[in-house]
């Protein structure tokens, strides 16, 4: 499922291959974070597809709070706090693109 999502994002990308690699890495980092937090919080995670609605992912607000905080430490930024336009992602694809735009 991870691969499906990365490919979808890959195909949607019009950037050069180098940038795409970075984007794939970002996607992989985020998906790994979803899995880690779900495991640590004892949640059953839905398959991580691009169009997975975050509220139906099996994660609660606390899980998302932890994901955003740990991603901030690993990636060095938090798009929720730093974005000029207020935005709340609905799907996992939205979430990854939000982080991609935010860096």
């Amino acid at each position, binding site marked *: 499922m991870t691969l499906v999502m990365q490919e979808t994002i890959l195909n949607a990308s019009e950037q050069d291959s180098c940038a795409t690699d970075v984007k794939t890495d970002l996607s992989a980092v985020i998906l790994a974070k979803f899995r880690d937090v779900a495991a*640590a*919080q*004892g949640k059953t995670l839905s398959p991580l597809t691009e169009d997975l*609605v*975050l*509220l*139906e992912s099996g994660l609660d*607000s*606390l899980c*998302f*709070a*932890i994901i*955003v*905080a*740990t991603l901030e*430490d690993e990636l060095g930024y*938090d798009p*929720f*706090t730093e974005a000029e336009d*207020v*935005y*709340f*992602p*609905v799907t996992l694809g939205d979430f990854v693109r939000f982080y991609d735009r935010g860096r």
Partner: protein
Amino acid sequence: MIAGAEPLSLRGTLSASPRLAARHLWSAGAQLALADIAAGTALGAALPDLAGRAVLLRVADPLYAAIALIELDGVARRIVICPPDLADDALPGVIEVAGVEAIVSEMAGIETHGLTHAPLTLPVRPLAATPEATRQTEWVMFTSGTSGPPKMVAHTLAGLTGAITPAPAGAAPPVWGTFYDIRRYGGLQILLRALLGEGSMAMTQPGEPMADFLNRLAHHGVTHLTGTPSHWRRVLMSRESAALSPAYVRLSGEIADQPVLDALKTRFAGVPIGHAYASTEAGVGFEVNDGLAGFPASFVGRPGEVEIRIEDGSLRLRSTRAASGYLNPGAEALAGDDGFVDTGDMVERRGDRYHFVGRRNGVINVGGLKVHPEEIEAVINRHPAVRMSRVRSRRNPITGAIVVAEVVLTDTAADPATVKAEILDACRRELAPFKVPAMLGFTPALALTAGGKLERAFA
């Protein structure tokens, strides 16, 4: 209310409603026509025996809490409203402190601790005789997030409804919805607004998926919707919110930051958005309706039903909406000698506005639920490899704050990764999920104050 007039009971207020037939309460599992309960009972034969008694309200479905409050207001001497997360092992202490004589619940086979169980059962039956609402019932609520035994405060219906103004004549009947549980102060405020303001209400309960509740809210045509900023962030992340078209949006229970206010303004264009300050102890303080975070400095010192003062950086409120006091023996006075309640919420003036900057004593507000650092530190410090620890708040765009722990290990401590896993296991065993440190790190030392206490920041 006319000075000197006796407040109506909830049942009396409903009975006088001109449009009672169209009004309902809905929970995830049940619904109630308000016309039925105005002239009926879910307590049946148990109701007369509860007159003048101190009763404990312990229900699974919050709709039954609403029913019991309607039936018992003005009848029971005291109603102790258990929040959904009150632990079973806290009940004996609560019963003793509050002098509870009977337990009201819809749950069959509930542990009664030797008291009478007054069962709530639906459907509502006609009342044999309307019980006389002769008393000013004491409403007892639990303060959120205390460390140690649960703390209870006493309110009256008059105090609880002090901030509620009558609906404007000719206004469309409101359908209230709230993401809070009605057994907590914020949610109870909304229930009372619905009951006293010619409205209906949809209520949620722990464990109901947000998407399901949003679908129910859309189905019932919710017009007035309230929650914490964290609740609202979750709404903004949902697809179901597109089906909502509220006429009023309200936030309280946490610091409403500018991003969440702006996002709601964009999502619900043209809809009035207010954020309110209230606490279980001090009651409803004020509402801010200009769409900006914080509150105008002009609120401080102005005359009115609620007086606002800032002292030593914290917000103080004085009004008849405050609780009358703590029930717990030996508890400190709720208000100072001057009648002001120190909320413990720290504010900072920037230009012509005050902004909330956190809580005194490092109390952490995770999505509206308060966390005392000492409670978590106590669990962490029980690990044999831990010398000391400090739990603090870290700002978070999803839940407002998360709990972060810094731990100092003993010299002989084993592998830190193992210790970390063991500490977190212990925290998950002994603490509610929102209290478990979201992040835990090791540090060589922690700063102490001159008095030898851990240094704590506000937020």
